[in-house]
């Protein structure tokens, strides 16, 4: 019998495979393809204090081994989210990490306070979205701002707080350490890398927002490097993500020291991918006579 469960900031996960925020809604759409209760956690699409309409279309463009997106955090707001999305997930016994977004510290804190008495396991604070004008990445690129918003959220949060960091910085260990100093219980990285595509036939930007966040296997080596650097710079657990598309990719992040991994863009290429990754990790452990997944976490120094 192989142990696949990991401890993440005091929360026991069935396995280390989660979904990346924004690629999986609140689980309902993918529950037609996979049993969401079998995931380490469902990480929901970012939710704000009020509904956000998001950006104009086109919002996505495919690029080699990845995609650009500028959805703009369209979301139903915390009221409808608590009424509909949380019960949907709890009825199906899913472990829940809610991704929280906002334009200001007050907006983030308002959502966190609303979630305090909800049956939610973890909070992921999105201070790294490249597609909204205020908030998002504006917080995530400045270590002082990262520390301050982390502290403000921690002061009100009843669940462990995971800060989601931006890769659009010179040194990710600076923002990682700032989040740790602010009291974060864990870190998620990486969010998308800001990119661009031009449609040469229409002679315009492929995205209405001009720029968008690059995700998919194209960013995996960058993400893995940043996860490894961060794991070695902080004491809090790190959730690794960025281009994971199969069990081999997930194992690389775990061996680099990530306590868990999130799968995002690969869901679009294969709606069954999360289950395939969980099974693939288990097969790898079996084949190599490893009885506990924790034995491979951080095994590459």
């Amino acid at each position, binding site marked *: 019998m192989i142990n696949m469960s990991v401890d993440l900031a005091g929360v026991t996960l069935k396995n280390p495979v989660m979904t990346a925020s924004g690629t999986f809604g609140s689980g309902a759409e*993918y529950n037609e393809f996979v049993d969401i209760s079998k995931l380490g956690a469902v990480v929901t699409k970012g939710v704000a204090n009020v*509904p956000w309409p*998001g950006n104009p279309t086109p919002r996505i463009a495919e690029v080699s081994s*990845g*995609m650009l*997106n500028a959805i703009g955090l*369209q979301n*139903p707001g915390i009221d409808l989210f608590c009424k509909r999305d949380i019960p949907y997930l709890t009825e199906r016994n899913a472990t829940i990490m809610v991704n929280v977004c906002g334009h200001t510290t007050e907006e983030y804190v308002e959502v966190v306070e609303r979630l305090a008495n909800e049956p939610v396991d973890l909070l992921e604070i999105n201070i790294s979205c490249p597609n909204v004008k205020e908030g998002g990445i504006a917080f995530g690129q400045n270590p002082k701002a990262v520390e301050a918003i982390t502290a403000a959220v921690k002061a009100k949060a009843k669940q462990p707080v995971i800060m989601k960091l931006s890769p659009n910085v010179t040194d990710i260990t600076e923002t990682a350490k700032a989040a740790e100093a602010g009291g974060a219980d864990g870190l998620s990285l990486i969010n998308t890398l800001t990119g661009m595509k031009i449609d040469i036939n229409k002679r315009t930007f492929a995205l209405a927002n001009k720029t968008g966040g690059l995700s998919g296997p194209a960013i995996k080596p960058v993400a893995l490097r940043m996860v490894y650097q961060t794991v070695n710079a902080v004491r809090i657990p790190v959730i690794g993500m960025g281009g994971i598309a199969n069990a081999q990719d997930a194992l690389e992040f775990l061996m680099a020291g990530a306590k868990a991994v999130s799968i995002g863009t690969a869901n*679009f290429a294969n709606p069954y991918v999360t289950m395939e990754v969980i099974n693939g990790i288990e097969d790898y452990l079996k084949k190599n006579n490893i009885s506990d997944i924790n034995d491979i976490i951080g095994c590459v120094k």
Partner: protein
Amino acid sequence: MKKKIPCRVLENKEIAKDIFDMRIDAKDIAKEAKCGQFVALYSKDKSRMLPRPISLCGIDREKGELRLVFRIAGAGTAEFAKLTAGDDIEVMGPLGNGFTDFGKKAILFGGGIGIPPMLELAKSLKERPIVVLGYRDAENFLADEFAKVADVYIATDDGSVGTKGNVIDAAKAAGLKGEVIYACGPTPMLRGVKAFGEELCVPTYISMEEKMACGIGACLACVCKSKETDEHTNVHNKRICKEGPVFEAGEVEL
């Protein structure tokens, strides 16, 4: 229930420049499909991650077959064009809501690569419909098949066949009247169809298109502006892949 399965290509041929007519053995997807729905086709090249949404030109529920007529629009569809009988392709479906038959005299408008989904609709309607097809030139793919099940009018950009101009020019030239309108085509055409439906005071249903990633309503890429607040996000953005692709024209801003 949606699923993603490998499907065997039964036939694939070019029926006009860059327009391909492909039949696939889609098993359960075909058995559950409704006209106006679509499927997502996946590239074998892993560097092209996102599925391509393709409308259903024909559904044979008994044989479990789907007919997909698509245009080469980029590298992904160029790959699909090269498939031959016996090849496999990953397909997810059926997706979206589809058309509803109200048992009324219908006018169908199809423009360019919006023409194929209207064929299955024309075949399935109880009452023989009127069909107005818009092409660039004399390459009038599928027109002969429409003629078997509908009264067909044609508009061409270059005037080589039928009315010179767009589908609305052709409908007005012929003084067409109906009790319900269905349309699929480029956005400027859909605007014209919406206005035509308002003039005739008849319900108008349009099938829309936008860049998609997941195809199942999770990623919120393919939204359109809607008059009413949408059920999912409580703003004014309906998901084309989920609440659509078919909308009552008054529901959406074009």
